[in-house]
């Protein structure tokens, strides 16, 4: 079973939860930019939460499924269609052979995901299918997807009365999104090691101003546009480990938020860290303005736990739904 890339997008790659345990050797963690979308889509399809998926920037790839498939799209909304009909995000779809999936217009977000029931086997490197384009390993031959690539997907038992060639059924159930108290453009952050070295006006400015995520931002880092933030540092910093979500201040006062493909260590002042529960939100804030709000560790952890319980509910509900489909 495989899908064919009919037209390549700007940045289509196979991703999963990323590889951990190798950063001390200089291997980037990688993994889906929107980990929550990765997990939700997999659970929606009855997969283990970290099965490999295709991550796409906009414009995204056009795909034909050569054989029968059960899939869903989610994360960013790029106005998907299946066999020419509108396809809402986060709905499972049963599609017959030669069904075509396309993404037409940019609606919102930064990264859209295509997940398949059974998952994509991909090329495993260091315990992850995440594509590392610098080392050219993992995912699909260690590179972005190209026109006429045939990407295999696992076969899993299919329900009876499956749609025929170029036909599909969009299932009526879907995954709801997870929400907290924050406004749409509000990103929660924890103070970083060098937060206290920022001038009072710089701190005020950081927490009150609106920043624009520069379109040149990529999987390594999001560059924020806005006037510079002032910092007073006596000593030069030594390079130290940096995290997904670390907010660094570049020379000249520009802000960069480190993302999934960041290097394992960095040497710029760490003024903050996006809380883990808001990493998916900032990842999807490409072409958007954002504001930062400092929160406590308690808040950061509560939101992460709340996100987890949302996922567990989704998992249980979907197991039940799929059991029912196969009983028929």
């Amino acid at each position, binding site marked *: 079973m495989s899908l064919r890339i009919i037209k390549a997008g700007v940045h289509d790659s196979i991703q999963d939860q990323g590889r*951990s*345990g*190798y*950063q*001390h*050797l*200089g*291997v980037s963690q990688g993994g889906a930019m929107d980990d929550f979308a990765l997990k939700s889509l997999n659970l929606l399809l009855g997969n283990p939460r970290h099965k490999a998926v295709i991550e796409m920037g906009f414009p995204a790839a056009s795909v034909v499924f050569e054989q029968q498939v059960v899939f869903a799209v989610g994360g960013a909304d790029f106005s998907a269609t299946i066999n020419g009909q509108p396809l809402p995000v986060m709905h499972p779809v049963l599609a017959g052979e030669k069904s075509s999936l396309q993404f037409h217009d940019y609606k919102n977000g930064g990264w859209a995901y295509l997940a398949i029931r059974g998952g994509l086997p991909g090329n*495993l*490197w*260091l*315990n992850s299918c995440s594509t590392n384009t*610098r*080392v050219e*390993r993992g995912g699909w031959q260690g590179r972005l997807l190209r026109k006429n690539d045939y990407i295999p997907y696992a076969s899993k038992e299919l329900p009876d009365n499956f749609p025929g060639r170029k036909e599909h059924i969009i299932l009526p159930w879907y995954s709801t999104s997870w929400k907290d108290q924050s406004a749409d453009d509000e990103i929660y952050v*924890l103070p*970083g*090691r060098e937060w206290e070295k920022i001038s009072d006006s710089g701190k005020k400015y950081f927490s009150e101003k609106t920043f624009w995520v520069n379109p040149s931002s990529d999987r390594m880092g999001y560059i924020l546009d806005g006037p510079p933030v002032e910092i007073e540092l006596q*000593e030069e*910093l*030594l*390079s*130290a*480990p940096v*995290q997904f*979500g*670390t907010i660094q201040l570049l020379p000249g006062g520009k802000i960069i938020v480190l993302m999934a493909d960041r*290097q*394992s*260590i960095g040497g710029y002042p*760490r003024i903050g*860290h*996006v*809380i*883990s529960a808001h990493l998916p939100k900032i990842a999807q804030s490409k072409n958007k303005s954002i504001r930062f709000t400092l929160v406590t*560790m*308690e808040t*950061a*952890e509560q939101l*992460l*736990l709340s996100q*987890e319980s949302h996922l567990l509910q989704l998992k249980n509900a979907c197991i039940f739904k799929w059991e029912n489909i196969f009983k028929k």
Partner: protein
Amino acid sequence: MHSLPPYSIFSSGDMAITIEFGHQINPGVNEIINTLYHYFTGNPFRGCIEVVPAYTSITIYYDPLILSGQVLNNETISATAIREIEKLIQVVSKLQPLQNREINVPVCYDPTFALDITTIADHTKMSPAKIIAIHCAVRYRVYMLGFLPGFAYMGEVDKRLYMPRKKLPQKIAAGSVGITGKQTGIYPLNSPGGWNIIGRTPEQLFETSGDTIQTFFEPGDIVQFYPISINEFKNYKGRGA
């Protein structure tokens, strides 16, 4: 036996804790980091994901969902992680120092590979021969790996060779040996980079297949470079990573 110098321990976001021993590059401090690294990875606490050592700091990544089971009273998961880590730190003073490997690394300083030797000569007002002799005279310590798989940050470079970072990163070939400030290092892959290139080594800096990766250098290695000719470079068989 290590005596433990003063340190700061703090959260780096909601999934990592960092221990920092000041801001000065120092072999003794780095030795403690290395000892901590080996002890932490050998005796991980429940929920520990990975440990990343650096010059004077070490960061421990944890899974808050797993660690949430260990929380006492009303403390945060982050505070629980700090508590678990502080227990481990205290053990370090009882550990034996690690044996550091000594490695001699061939470098071809021929202008074919030493793309920036003229820039370095102009900046330092020394001849290429003198520059090469100084670069080869020091026994460097590998302080950490990062940036690319197997990229070793080594120091300290002789003051007379201090070079600023390039303004714009340039394309650099795998094996290129670079210098910047106190640091010297080797690019394991073709990559953009901002360090001034002084030569190239024929050594392979990492080998990987499937689920294994082996790097040529490890933190704590003591490294000395020796010059080889272009012919020796071409015929070099390597000792394997």
